[in-house]
């Protein structure tokens, strides 16, 4: 355990009474509550945190916030998390981390943490709780508006936290207290706004428990996504200091001047004992003064400007610090750590720290995502906001306004404008603190210093040097986007926060063009990295997509059903008994349906109640066949096509009254059919007086199938005349079944005598149990979707979506009979007259019998004409859509879509299965009971 030798004696916003132990790169250290991993490492004299990705050069802590390009770490405990910046990892007891040169490591164990998301709406969203943001929030909150303030740090204050502006920090505390106390205001710290989407939809991630380490309560979500819809947005996102390109500008011990100031003031850490300062602007002088006051010697200030601020020069001179105007750095001595700095002209200064300020870049990422334009301000030497269509304002240093007084004033103005724009009378915020402003001397516009371009780094994380950029421009590239891609500058973890504008500057310098004309690369979400888990939130596992189950689901589970996902529904697939596999169970279930009685839960069928005087007209237009001629009390099968003539859905239509039908759809397509009807009714035929309502989950449906089904129904429905003449095929009756109000339809999807019993959803279990009890003496058998598929396939009934695929017409299925010749039009009719739908060699639905009587063709297998395969591409005839073992036929069979299939009935074709060609014979699609004798029992 080392001492914190570089900790100041006092000061800083850390809690010296709460020491925290942590381990970095295998060594144990202590820091304090309030530290980041970076500040704690610096307090222990550790600058070097990593080795660079490409060149293997030592790299150290360079910044103090989210813009850090070097100090990437892998957290190993309490739970592995790849690639975080040491400057944003809040220290907690037991943290174990290591420096990363390149790749992070994912955990192999499942992440135990929870993640969630919250929606919120507000009048004014303020992003950034620095001076400008707090000033804006203070006014907005005082106006009675609903305000949300987000800031990515652990406490509000922004750049002020890195200063010794006592009055301003008092003001920060007062405003924060006001905001916390105001019920209309939500102040979210540790929350990064990372995306700005259409219509002021801003998304942010709140890190809720990470700073607590292993003591984080398990019931709290670790990270939370805030989905914020704001009427007005104020962006007070601050500015990032940027570096300069000079020789060996990547050595550990080289740090942004503002970052060093933050380490001294906020964390009570001395980033070194003796510093050289290299700057293009005034801001580094304030940093130098603060470091001096904390006990860091300043060896010299090298200012690239030929004439520097007399005021600052005097202030430094008073402290015995030399300011050299018009001087840059020639080279840096020391590989693992700066040991001295040689200035242009050769003077060498011993130093363990080199502070750099190459100017400031307003953080324009969110503004740019909002569609805001940026323009290069030649006076400031940076890109600043220049107009946006969204209701957004930018305030403070994000707007290129760098003095405290200016930031406060601009924030106040932005807050006032935002509330007034949303209809509030602007209130009065907390009185602003007085801020002394020193006159500003314009910055120098320098990107590159003379030297060896191969060791002048532009993007530290990607090891991109000026020489690399020169190579890129030498290839013929003129666009900064090309240079970025060629060199990878700006593509690393920091997404170019400190290097992006510098890259543009260097490219402009090399090409001799104006950096403003060159522009920057595009800012994309997220502003800062966001974990996959946070974005996924709670939508995982069972919550990834809704699970729909029928009223009988618990019964199915209790009785050993295996389930199949059909759309969002879970349907019983089959009910294995005593170690049966699918094959054995289905043969048994099929046999019961063909020879005795069987029952299934058909409740997932889509059901739409279609009512109104013009209901029949609507159905005539949507179905290929005539529905208006259907008699009340009767049922008709129908097919719907898309306008392109391809089958869309099928099902039965029950006429309940002159003006009322019940339409059933396939399980997966119920919502689609309802949408289809509503679309036509609202947009094409608003004159039709029809209403459609989904009743899928109002009616439970139980299929009762088999030659002995009539006996079971007769037992259960004493009021119902069940003989064939009284209750013929394709009719329905309202009656009482097992004491329950029920609608019984005589429909068959198996070819057998069969009924569908419909009752209220909540009566389903009572009916089901009654059916099973009544059928028990006859050996009633429950069956699932697989058996249903076999039974219908034996009869050649297609399943839409299995035997069709969006390229199949009713005629392709051999269902010309269902396509009305009488109706002048229906949806899809015109398409049947197109050249392609009239081709004789279209694929037809046919049956297939493997010649050996034993081979079960895989569904999806293809058919060819030849007995041996030529070199590919092999001409194909079509494919197997359905294939089963048939108990009734005593052999396997299949349905297939085959080119010109109906003209090939009786022909032998071949199914290539692996290396074998299996001979099969094409038949008609109806293989079982082609005469339809079993339908009436």
């Amino acid at each position, binding site marked *: 355990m080392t001492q914190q030798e570089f900790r100041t004696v006092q000061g800083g916003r850390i809690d010296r009474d709460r020491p925290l132990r942590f381990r970095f790169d295998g060594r144990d250290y202590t820091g304090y509550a309030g530290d980041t991993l970076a500040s704690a490492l610096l307090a222990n004299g550790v600058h070097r945190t990593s080795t660079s990705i490409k060149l293997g050069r030592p790299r150290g802590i360079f910044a103090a916030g989210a813009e850090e390009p070097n100090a990437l770490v892998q957290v190993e405990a309490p739970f592995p998390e790849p690639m975080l910046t040491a400057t944003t990892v809040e220290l907690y007891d037991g943290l174990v981390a290591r420096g990363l040169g390149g790749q992070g490591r994912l955990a192999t164990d499942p992440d135990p943490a929870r993640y969630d998301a919250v929606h919120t709406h507000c009048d004014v969203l303020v992003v950034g709780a620095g001076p400008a943001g707090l000033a804006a929030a203070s006014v907005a909150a005082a106006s009675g508006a609903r305000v949300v303030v987000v800031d990515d740090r652990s406490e509000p204050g922004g750049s002020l936290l890195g200063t010794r502006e006592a009055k301003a920090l008092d003001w920060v505390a007062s405003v924060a207290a006001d905001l916390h106390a105001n019920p209309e205001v939500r102040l979210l710290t540790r929350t990064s706004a990372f995306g700005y989407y259409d219509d002021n*939809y801003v998304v942010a991630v709140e890190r809720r428990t990470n700073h607590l380490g292993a003591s984080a309560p398990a019931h709290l979500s670790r990270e939370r996504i805030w989905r914020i819809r704001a009427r007005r947005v104020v962006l007070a996102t601050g500015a990032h200091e940027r570096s300069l390109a000079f020789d060996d500008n990547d050595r550990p011990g080289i740090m942004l001047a503002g970052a060093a100031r933050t380490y001294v003031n906020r964390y009570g850490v001395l980033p070194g004992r003796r510093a050289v300062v290299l700057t293009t602007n005034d801001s580094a002088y304030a940093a130098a003064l603060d470091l001096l006051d904390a006990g860091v010697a300043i060896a010299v200030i090298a200012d690239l400007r030929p004439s520097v601020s007399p005021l600052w020069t005097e202030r430094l001179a008073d402290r015995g610090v030399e300011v050299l105007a018009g001087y840059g750095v020639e080279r840096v001595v020391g590989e693992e750590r700066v040991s001295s700095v040689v200035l242009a002209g050769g003077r060498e200064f011993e130093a363990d720290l080199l502070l750099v300020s190459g100017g400031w870049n307003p953080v324009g990422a969110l503004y740019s995502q909002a569609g805001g334009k940026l323009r290069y301000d030649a006076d400031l030497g940076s890109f600043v906001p220049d107009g946006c269509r969204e209701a957004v304002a930018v305030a403070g240093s994000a707007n290129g306004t760098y003095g405290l007084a200016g930031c406060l004033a601009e924030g106040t103005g932005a807050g006032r404008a935002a509330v007034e724009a949303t209809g509030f009378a602007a209130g009065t915020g907390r009185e602003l603190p007085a801020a002394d402003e020193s006159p500003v001397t314009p910055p120098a516009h320098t990107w590159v210093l003379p030297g060896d371009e191969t060791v002048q780094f532009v993007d530290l994380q990607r090891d991109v040097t000026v020489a690399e950029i020169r190579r890129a421009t030498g290839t013929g590239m003129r666009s900064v986007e090309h240079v970025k891609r060629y060199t990878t500058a700006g593509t690393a973890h920091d997404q170019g926060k400190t290097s992006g504008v510098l890259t543009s500057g260097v490219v402009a310098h090399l090409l001799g063009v104006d950096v403003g004309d060159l522009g920057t690369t595009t800012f994309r979400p997220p502003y800062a990295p966001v974990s996959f888990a946070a974005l996924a939130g709670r939508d995982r596992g069972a919550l990834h997509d809704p699970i729909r189950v029928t009223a009988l689901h618990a019964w199915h589970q209790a009785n050993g059903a295996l389930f199949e996902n059909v759309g969002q529904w879970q349907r019983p697939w089959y009910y294995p008994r005593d170690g049966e596999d699918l094959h054995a169970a289905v043969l048994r279930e099929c046999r019961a349906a063909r020879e005795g009685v069987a029952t299934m839960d058909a409740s997932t069928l889509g059901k739409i109640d279609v009512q109104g005087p013009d209901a029949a007209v609507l159905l005539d237009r949507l179905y290929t066949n005539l529905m208006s001629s259907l008699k009340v009390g009767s049922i008709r099968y129908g097919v719907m096509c898309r306008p392109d003539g391809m089958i869309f859905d099928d099902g039965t239509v029950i006429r309940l009254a002159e003006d009322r039908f019940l339409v059933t759809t396939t399980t997966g397509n119920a919502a689609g059919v309802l949408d289809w009807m509503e679309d036509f009714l609202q947009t094409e035929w608003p004159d039709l007086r029809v209403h459609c309502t989904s009743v899928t989950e109002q009616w439970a449906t139980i299929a009762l199938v088999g030659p002995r089904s009539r006996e079971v129904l007769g037992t259960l429905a004493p009021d119902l005349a069940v003989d064939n003449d009284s209750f013929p095929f394709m009719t329905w009756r309202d009656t009482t079944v097992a004491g329950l109000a029920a609608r019984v339809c005589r429909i068959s999807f198996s070819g057998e005598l069969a009924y569908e019993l419909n009752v209220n959803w909540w009566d389903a279990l009572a009916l089901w149990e009654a059916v099973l009890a009544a059928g028990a003496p006859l050996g009633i058998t429950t069956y699932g979707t697989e058996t249903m598929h076999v039974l219908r396939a034996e009869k050649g009934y297609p399943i839409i979506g299995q035997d069709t695929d969006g390229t199949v017409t009713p005629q392709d299925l051999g269902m010309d009979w269902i396509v009305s010749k009488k109706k002048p*039009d229906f949806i899809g009719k015109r398409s049947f*007259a197109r050249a392609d739908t009239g081709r004789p060699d279209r694929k037809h639905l046919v049956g297939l019998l493997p010649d050996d009587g034993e081979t079960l063709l895989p569904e999806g297998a293809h058919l060819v004409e030849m007995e041996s395969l030529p070199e590919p591409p092999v001409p194909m005839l079509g494919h197997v859509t359905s294939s089963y073992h048939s108990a009734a036929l005593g052999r396997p069979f299949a349905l297939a879509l085959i080119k010109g299939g109906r003209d090939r009935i009786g022909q032998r074709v071949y199914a290539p299965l692996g290396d074998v060609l299996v001979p099969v014979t094409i038949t008609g699609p109806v293989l079982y009971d082609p005469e339809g004798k079993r339908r009436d029992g």
Partner: protein
Amino acid sequence: MMLIPCPWCGPREEAEFHYGGQAHVAYPSDPAALSDEEWARFLFFRDNPKGPFAERWNHSASCRRWFNVVRDTVTNEILAVYKVGAPRPVLA
């Protein structure tokens, strides 16, 4: 995530809506009278402008009503909202 002003419910999140493509494409009154080319145009050809586009949206998670919107396909700015059957508004 656009904020789409449903004429019946007010402004709601884009995720509540279902997109319906170009507005003002009527189902032909007599499809049989159309040539194959004309029918193909109805089936498959829709405008695809870069800029203002009159299009259909359905508030499927709420009132389930269809309505029309003029939206700029570059900025996603919604320039007008109007009911089915109304003519496309003339924008300044």
